[in-house]
């Protein structure tokens, strides 16, 4: 139960990083990545996965 970021799509804007309620998203090297152990898919914290909602690029934050 986690999301991941499709690296080739990501513009590295960082919006997902500070919307994630679990601090699961970090900038590593060249891109943002989601730590699957921390990601809860925002269950119980928001109506929808926050990274998906804020990401400007469609189909970039997707279920792992």
């Amino acid at each position, binding site marked *: 139960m986690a999301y991941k970021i499709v690296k080739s799509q990501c*513009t*590295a804007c*960082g*919006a997902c990083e*500070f919307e994630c309620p679990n601090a699961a998203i970090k900038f590593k090297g060249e891109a943002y990545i989601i730590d699957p152990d921390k990601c809860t898919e925002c269950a119980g914290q928001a109506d929808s996965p926050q990274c998906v*909602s*804020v990401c400007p690029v469609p189909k970039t934050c997707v279920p792992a």
Partner: protein
Amino acid sequence: MADIISLGGLQIASRDELGKAMEGGGCAASSCGSKAGPADMDPAVWAKVKDHPCYSEEAHHYFARMHVAVAPACNIQCNYCNRKYDCANESRPGVVSERLTPEQAARKVLAVAAEVPQLSVLGIAGPGDAAYDWRKTRATFDLVQKQLPDIKLCLSSNGLAMPDHVDEIVAMNIDHVTLTINTLDPEVGAKIYPWIFFRGKRHEGVEAATILLQRQMESLDMLVARGVLVKVNSVLIPGINDEGMLELNKVVKAKGAFLHNIMPLISDPAHGTHFGLTGQRGPSAAELKAVQDACGDGANLMRHCRQCRADAVGMLGEDRGQEFTLDKLPEVVGDDGGKRAAYRDWVTREREDRRAAADAAQAEAADVAAPPMLVAVCTKGGGRINQHFGHATEFQIYEVDASGVRFVTHRRADNYCVGGHGEGETLSEIIRTLEGVPVVLCARVGDGPRAKMAAAGIEVIDACAQDYIETAILDLYAARHRKGALTA
């Protein structure tokens, strides 16, 4: 060429030396901001804008700005923006070359401030939204303010997150904010913004545009109420928001916006924006001017915006960003602000001089009864005619008549003198660019281009090299019409 004056190796002992340095190295500039000078402006407002190259047309001749791209995250999506490449909020499409942390940005500002005494403003203007990505914006401003208290701070935002930070903005002495507002009509907004992200949720369509508009108006009211100068930017999109632009101009003026900057949509398909891909065209220069003219008595219009990159450095109309990339920055930058203080001193006296000279020339032209005339000027800044015709990457267009000289717009020109030899192709492009402008004033021009320009009906004059722009234009106008009167 980005040949801003570098005072690095110079001892600024006197104003004369600085004057000489300006003539030699020159500093690039262009035109900007409110046309109003101190005479017709509230002194409190003038104090805020007098050194801001984007807010005061006079200041653009003397001062430089820099943008740092520290806040790339955005809370809305605009159809004219593609963040894979750049943000549209306030930057010309083109990749922002570096993504900076606040610490890196502060180091860069320090390095530029030490090199470029004209620097007076640091702005955060995309890609992304400076008020949404607030932690990075604030951290950057905090660091800079501690080390360079004389540099003014400004930011630009779509307004959605702005109301949450207005108090901090006031507390941090940020006294200029740019809000991008494209329409008052949520139906129209829905055609510009596919979605917004607000309070944890993505909203779409008219609902999204309604929330955004309401927050934009709230931002404008809050900022104005606290004495922050607000410039409103609008992207003119033919067939979408052009009809409402007049009304928008009236409303933002009534709410106290200081400047309204109506900018053309840039929609090259190569930039990959929604509008670019769907073939939405940008306005022609004539359409843009027609809308700007119709808004003439609305909020002061800004006619000189360069739609700069979000990481531009230098005088408006130039970009020295490549000289200050991270890998070129010194580890430790020493700066005591002395050069900037000396430079500002010099500017104060130079401005007085220039104004007095213009007043004198004005008196000469006051009784000329002739139609207004357009004049193009090649300048590197300092308010003087000091650029070689072949080096101009843009022409500043002025209009003159008996009531005085007014800046009208700038027109871009590709560097005629690429690599030291002129290119016929570019020259014909310049002739097209200068349509309707019979005279060009520059510091120097070769015989070849002068003859070709003359054949096209455009006179290129280098007799008033180094003169103040206003003075030279007024003298020319007065002389022309005296001559005309004799031969007639």
